[in-house]
C-alpha cells in the first residue's frame, strides 16, 4: 500500500512539474531580426460560445460576490471603514443633517452570554428643535436575550449635544441563560448553574463635558429585577444548586442615585494607541419594598496606553476595582455582585466564574499591527474577588494569559478573536468591539 502511494506521489510530482513547464514559454529578448514564436491566441481554435453556456475559468467564488453584492447594494456609498462600521452598528448609515432621522442596524451581543443577535436603533430628532431627539432601540439574540429601550434626549444649553445631554430612558431587558458558580474566591466550577434575570427601569441622567478631556454627570434610576429558572437545559438551575443561600432570589427594587466622572487623554476613547483613561462611578442603591439590599457601589477603571517607539506597537495596561459596601444589616443581591471571568477580564475563565462583594483585577496587553486593518495581541490578566480583607491574599489571585487577532478600521477595532488560558480551561472567544 505504502509503495502504491509513494509511486502515485512520485507520478503526481513529475506530472505537476512537467505541467508547470508545459504552461510556460520562455520569454526571449525581442529584437527586430529574431522574432519569437507566435503566441497570439487564434480565436478560431476556441470552441464557439453562446451567452451563458460556458463556464468561467478560475473564478470559483464569483457567484458569492455577485450574490452578496446584491444584498449589500444599499451600503454602496461608503468605503470599507464606514461600511464595516455600518454593519456592526457603530455609526449611522450616513451623516445627515440635524433634522434627519437616522437608523442604525447592528449585529452583536446584548450581554456577555447573550449569543449573537441583531439590534435596531432609530433616532428621530425633533423637526422643531435640533436639541431634542428620541431614540428607540430593540435587540434580540440567538439565545432569546431581549433588550428594548426608549430614550428622550435633550440639550438644555441649546448646543446640539456638544457639551450637555439630558436623557430620560425606559428599559426592559431579559437575560434567560446567565451562569453562576457561587460566591467568593473559592467557588467550585462544578457548581456551574443557570438562572434567568429580568430588568426593567426608568432613569434620568444629566451628563456634561466641560472639556475634551473631562466628562461627568449624575442621575437617578428606579429599577426592578426579578430572578427565575435558567433556560439553559444543559445546566442545573442556580436556585436548586444554592437553595436558600443566595440573597435577592425573590427579586429586588431599587432607587439608585449615581454620579460618575471620566478623564481621557490621547486616543484613549478612539483607537486606544496612546494616552490614558480613568473612570470612577459611585452609586447609592436604596432598596425599595423593604428588602435588606441597600448598598454603596464604587467602580474604578484606570487604563493606560503606551506606544513602544511607534503607535503600531503599544502596551495597554488596565486596573479595575469594584467595591460594594452594604449598609448595616444589608446584603448585595447575588446577581449584582462584583464578578470576574469572561471576555473582558480574567479571560480564560467562564463568564461570572467568580462573584464576590469586591473585586480587583489588572490586565497587561501587548498589541501590534500586522497590516493596515489587522492586529495581534497577547495578554495576561490577574485578579480576585473577596468578601473580606482577609481573603485578599496574593495566593488567592487568579491569572490567565492568551492572545489573538483583531480586525479594525482606522477609527476603531470591530472584531477580536482570541484564546485565553486559565488553570481550569482554554477558551476561544469572539468579541465584537475593541478590548479595553
Amino acid at each position: 500500500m505504502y509503495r502504491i502511494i509513494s509511486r502515485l506521489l512520485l507520478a503526481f510530482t513529475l506530472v505537476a512539474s512537467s505541467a508547470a513547464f508545459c504552461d510556460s514559454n520562455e520569454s526571449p529578448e525581442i529584437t527586430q531580426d529574431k522574432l519569437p514564436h507566435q503566441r497570439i491566441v487564434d480565436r478560431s481554435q476556441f470552441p464557439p460560445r453562446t451567452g451563458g453556456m460556458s463556464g468561467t475559468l478560475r473564478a470559483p467564488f464569483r457567484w458569492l460576490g455577485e450574490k452578496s453584492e446584491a444584498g449589500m447594494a444599499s451600503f454602496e456609498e461608503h468605503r470599507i471603514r464606514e461600511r464595516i462600521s455600518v454593519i456592526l452598528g457603530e455609526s449611522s448609515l450616513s451623516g445627515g443633517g440635524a433634522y434627519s432621522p437616522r437608523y442604525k442596524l447592528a449585529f452583536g451581543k446584548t450581554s456577555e452570554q447573550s449569543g449573537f443577535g441583531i439590534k435596531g436603533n432609530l433616532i428621530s430628532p425633533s423637526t422643531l428643535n435640533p436639541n431634542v431627539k428620541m431614540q428607540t432601540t430593540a435587540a434580540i439574540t440567538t439565545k432569546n436575550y431581549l433588550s428594548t429601550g426608549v430614550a428622550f434626549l435633550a440639550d438644555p444649553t441649546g448646543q446640539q449635544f456638544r457639551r450637555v445631554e439630558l436623557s430620560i430612558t425606559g428599559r426592559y431587558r431579559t437575560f434567560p441563560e446567565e451562569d453562576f458558580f457561587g460566591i467568593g474566591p473559592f467557588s467550585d466550577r462544578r457548581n456551574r448553574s443557570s438562572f434567568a434575570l429580568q430588568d426593567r427601569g426608568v432613569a434620568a441622567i444629566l451628563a456634561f463635558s466641560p472639556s475634551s478631556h473631562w466628562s461627568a454627570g449624575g442621575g437617578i434610576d428606579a429599577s426592578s429585577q426579578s430572578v427565575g429558572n435558567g433556560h439553559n437545559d444543559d445546566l442545573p438551575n442556580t436556585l436548586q444548586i444554592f437553595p436558600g443561600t443566595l440573597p435577592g432570589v425573590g427579586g429586588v427594587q431599587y432607587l439608585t442615585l449615581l454620579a460618575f466622572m471620566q478623564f481621557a487623554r490621547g486616543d484613549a476613547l478612539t483607537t486606544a494607541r496612546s494616552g490614558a483613561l480613568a473612570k470612577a462611578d459611585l452609586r447609592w442603591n436604596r432598596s425599595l419594598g423593604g428588602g435588606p439590599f441597600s448598598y454603596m457601589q464604587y467602580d474604578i477603571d484606570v487604563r493606560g496606553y503606551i506606544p513602544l517607539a511607534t503607535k503600531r506597537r503599544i502596551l495597554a495596561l488596565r486596573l479595575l476595582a469594584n467595591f460594594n459596601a452594604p449598609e448595616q444589616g444589608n446584603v448585595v443581591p447575588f446577581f449584582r455582585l462584583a464578578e470576574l471571568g469572561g471576555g473582558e477580564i480574567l479571560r480564560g475563565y467562564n463568564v461570572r466564574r467568580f462573584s464576590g462583594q469586591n473585586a480587583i483585577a489588572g490586565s497587561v496587553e501587548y498589541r501590534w499591527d500586522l497590516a493596515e486593518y489587522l492586529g495581534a495581541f497577547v495578554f495576561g490578566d490577574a485578579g480576585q474577588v473577596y468578601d473580606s480583607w482577609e481573603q485578599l491574599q496574593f495566593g488567592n489571585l487568579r491569572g490567565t494569559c492568551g492572545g489573538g487577532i483583531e480586525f479594525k478600521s482606522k477609527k476603531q477595532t470591530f472584531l477580536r478573536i482570541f484564546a485565553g488560558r486559565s488553570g481550569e480551561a482554554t477558551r476561544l472567544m469572539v468579541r465584537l468591539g475593541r478590548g479595553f
Partner: protein
Amino acid sequence: MQDNRHFRRRLQYVLLVLICIACFDVAGQQASPKPQEPLWIDFDLENIPEPKARAAGYIYDFAYGTFFLQIREAFDVPRHARQITHHPKEALNVNSVDEVPNSSWFVNRNGRSRMTVEEIRWGPNQTSGPAPGKLKVIRGKNEGISPGFWIKDSRGDIYILKFDPKNYPEMASAAEVISTKLLFAIGYNVPQNTIFRFRSEDLEIDAKATVRDQLNRKKKMERTDLDGILDKVARQSDGSFRALASKLLSGKPKGGFHFEGVRKDDPNDIIPHEDRRDLRGLRVFASWIDHNDLRVGNTLDMYVAENGRKFLRHYLLDFGSTLGSETDQANESFVGHEHQMDLGEARKQLVTFGIKQPSWRSHPEPVRYSSIGRWSANGFDPRTWKQNFPLTAFDNLTDSDARWAARIVNSFSDEQIAAAVFCGELSDPEAAKYLTRELTLRRNAIRDAFLGSQE
C-alpha cells in the same frame, strides 16, 4: 525471483520517467516557434446578445482579494512549481513581436507611435467638457465616496460632477484628469474627464431629478439637497465651484470586469483575464500613477453598438484614488507598499511581534502640496508595488509582461508627461512642476527596474 521483481520495479520507474519526458517534449513541440507575421488586431468585436448587468461592490472586492484569493494562491501547487522553476505562465494575447494587439480592451497608442502633446491633452475627449449655459441637475450621485450629482448640459450631454474634499482642493479632480490622459495614451478605454468650473446659479434642478435620503429611499430632489451637497465641497476664491466632469459613456453599462476568468455571457471573451497581458501589465501602469484602488468596482463593461455590431467594450473608471489622492483624503502611508489587508506582510509581523517596521511606516512621506496629496518617487519600487486588493491578473505578471508595460511607460517623453499634468489645472505652478518631476522619476524607475540597460 527477487531479482526479477526488482527489475520489473525499475522498469516501471523508467517507463514513468519516459512518459513524463514524452509529455514534456510534446508540450514543447506544441509551443515550438512558428514564424508568422505579427497580428495587430485581436478581433473581439463580434455581435453578441445583450449580457445581463451585474453588480460590483467594495465588499466583494475586499473579501475576495483579501481572503479567498490570497489563501487560494497560497495553496496553488502548480503555480508554486512554476515559480520555483522560473517558468511562469506567459500571457496569451501577445503577438509575434511580444506586443498586445488591439482589442475591445486595449488599443496601442503612445507605445506604437508617439502621440503629439495636443493629442495627449485631448486624450479621450471629443469636447472640452459641458457646454456653456444652464446645467440641469438630473439626479444625485449615489456611487463612490466623493459628493456629486449628474447634470445635462445645453447640448444634451450627460455628465457626472465629482468634487474635491474641502481640505484638499483640486487634489482628486486633478489626479483623475491626469491619470485619464495617461491611461488613455497608454491604450486603455477611459471616460472623457475634464476639469469644469461653474457657479451655483448655473444649476437648475430638473423636475424629474431624484436623490436618495438618509434611509436610502429615492425622493424628489430639492434645492436644499443640492445646497447640502455643495456645502460639503471646496469652493473657489471667486465663489465658483471646481469639479471633475465625467461624461456618461455611450452604450449600456453591464457591470465591472473581473481580473480572472472570462465573462460567461460574452462569447467574445475567450482569453482568461488573468492571462491577458493588457490586464497583467496594468499593474506596472498602476504603479506609475499609484492607481491603488484598481478593482472590479472601478471597471465597467459597456454594451455598445458600432458598425452594425453590438459587443462589450471594457473601461477603466474612477481615478480619484491615483497619484497622491485617496479621493476624500491624501494617500495613507501604506498605499503602494501593502495591500489593505496583506496576509503575507501580516505573517511576517506576527512572527516578529511587530518589532521590525518598514521605513515607509517609520518615516512616511509628508503631504507637500494639498492639491497633490501624499505622493513622491522616493522609495518607489515598481517590482514590489502593491494595489489595495490582490488581483489575479496582477499576480500573474511575468518579466515579459513587465517589459512590455515598461516599454510603453518609457515611451512617454517629459513633454508628454507635462502635457498630461497641465490638464489637471493645478493653480500652484510649483505643485504642477513637482508632480511632473515625480512622474518622470517614477517612469525612470520603471525603466530601470524592468528594462535595465536595454533601452
